[in-house]
């Protein structure tokens, strides 16, 4: 397994597994200090994007290094969530680094593709694929 240093857990973590996670959570870590890893869980709707926006931007853009974003825990995304991903990817690109999204659930993936995000960002299935994409 990858070594996660600098692990920060934000938000409520004691949700019953049977219920859909409503509040957006974000967990920030890194791989050997070279790659940022952001795991998102919950609904990335307007309220969710508002809730994590500043921390997401700080965790991704301010680090100025490649970033992997794990969407596997995201049950819903719409335009405000996409806006956060685009603005952060754009900010990171301006610093010379790329952002890779992975693990999106099918209905979330549909929304990403409708927004044509798959045309301008790497969107892959797994963390291993995401790491391979960064390496390639």
């Amino acid at each position, binding site marked *: 397994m990858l070594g996660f240093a600098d692990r920060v857990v934000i938000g409520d973590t004691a949700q019953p597994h049977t219920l859909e996670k409503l509040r957006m959570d974000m967990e920030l870590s890194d791989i050997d200090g070279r790659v940022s890893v952001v795991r998102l869980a919950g609904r990335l709707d*307007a309220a969710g994007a508002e809730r994590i926006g500043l921390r997401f931007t700080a965790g991704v853009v301010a680090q100025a290094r490649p970033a992997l974003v794990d969407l596997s825990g995201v049950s819903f995304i719409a*335009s405000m969530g996409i806006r956060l991903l685009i603005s952060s990817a754009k900010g990171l690109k301006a610093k010379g680094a790329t952002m890779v999204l992975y693990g999106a659930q099918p*209905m979330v993936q549909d929304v990403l593709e409708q927004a044509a995000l798959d045309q301008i960002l790497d969107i892959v299935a797994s963390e291993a694929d995401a790491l391979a994409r960064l390496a390639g």
Partner: protein
Amino acid sequence: MRLELPAATASVERARRAVHEFLAPHALTPQQVYAVEVVLEEALMNIVMHAFPKPEGHGIELVVSIDDEQVVLRFEDDGIPFDPLSIDAPPRPASIEQAEPGGLGLLFVRERSRSLVYERRDGRNVLTVALSRE
């Protein structure tokens, strides 16, 4: 069902729960539920963000109905006249540098609706979105 909501972000979650409860007996597919949620989120946030220079004291009326063929969501507000259908979809960006974050909400609603109608009626914005159950 009919719901009066304050013009605030928190209204989206309130509406979502009420609409879920209302639609529960009708056994929609997960894709249909997701589509309803996208429409709720985008239409309500559009009103919250654009309809009122000062949202305090203003409300949104949401009416939802369902039959065998479709789910219809009607959004009404007394904000400034604004036809969301007059806004063009953002151009498809060729690169992340060119991407403009925004303008996608209406695109998502269009993609999921079988009909989408805007009217300015008695000083109110009325947006009616019908989603197919097929």
